[in-house]
């Protein structure tokens, strides 16, 4: 159930393929893979956004991501989970977050993926600061997921 914070741009499709091919040994057991990919937009709250800086709280962020995945594992029958999140400088079209879930059946995979993402957005300490043509601003809150 790895968690990875990245300071460099990552390719989510390569990550999924590599993880499934080299880090998992349950081939034949999982019938469902669900993944959510969050990508940076070039606009937010009515403004053009050129760049974003993602700050986090080293150790607390990882601890809470692990806790969230642990809760999902207790609640649903999961085979594996992978969470990758960017930190540092992020540009439009860059992947920000990848949450991937492998399970025997789709119900658990869909529900656990949604749960992990929504909890991450409210409990894992990350903060976004945007660079606009007009200057910089902190993002004050996330949009509702439901």
């Amino acid at each position, binding site marked *: 159930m790895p968690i990875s914070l990245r300071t460099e741009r990552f390719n989510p499709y390569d990550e999924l393929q590599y993880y499934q091919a080299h880090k998992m040994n349950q081939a034949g057991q999982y019938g469902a893979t669900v993944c959510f990919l969050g990508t940076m937009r070039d606009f937010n709250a009515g403004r053009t956004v050129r760049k974003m800086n993602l*700050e986090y709280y080293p150790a607390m962020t990882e601890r809470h991501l692990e806790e969230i995945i642990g809760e999902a594992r207790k609640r649903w029958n999961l085979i594996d989970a992978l969470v990758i999140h960017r930190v540092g400088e992020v540009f439009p079209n860059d992947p920000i977050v990848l949450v991937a879930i492998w399970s025997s059946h789709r119900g658990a995979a869909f529900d656990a993926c949604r749960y992990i993402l929504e909890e991450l957005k409210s409990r894992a300490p990350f903060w976004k600061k945007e660079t606009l043509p007009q200057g910089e601003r902190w*993002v004050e809150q996330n949009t509702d997921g439901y």
Partner: protein
Amino acid sequence: MSIRVRYFANLRENMGRDEENLAALGISTVSDVWKAVNDGLSLPDRILCAVNMEFATPDSSVSDGDEVAFFPPITGG
């Protein structure tokens, strides 16, 4: 020993520092920590806090050697 106080995001910018050490004498809650580093002002409702990397409330207890963090609402993902 002392209390390590940390600030993140816009709070770090507003405070002009990312952390400081505070003498534990007379400190028993998160609210006391905030007042000690902000000239006695109360902790605003919108600011979140953590003690030893677990979410806390203004009434949560703080002891010598603890790490207390203050930050704005979370905006990751």
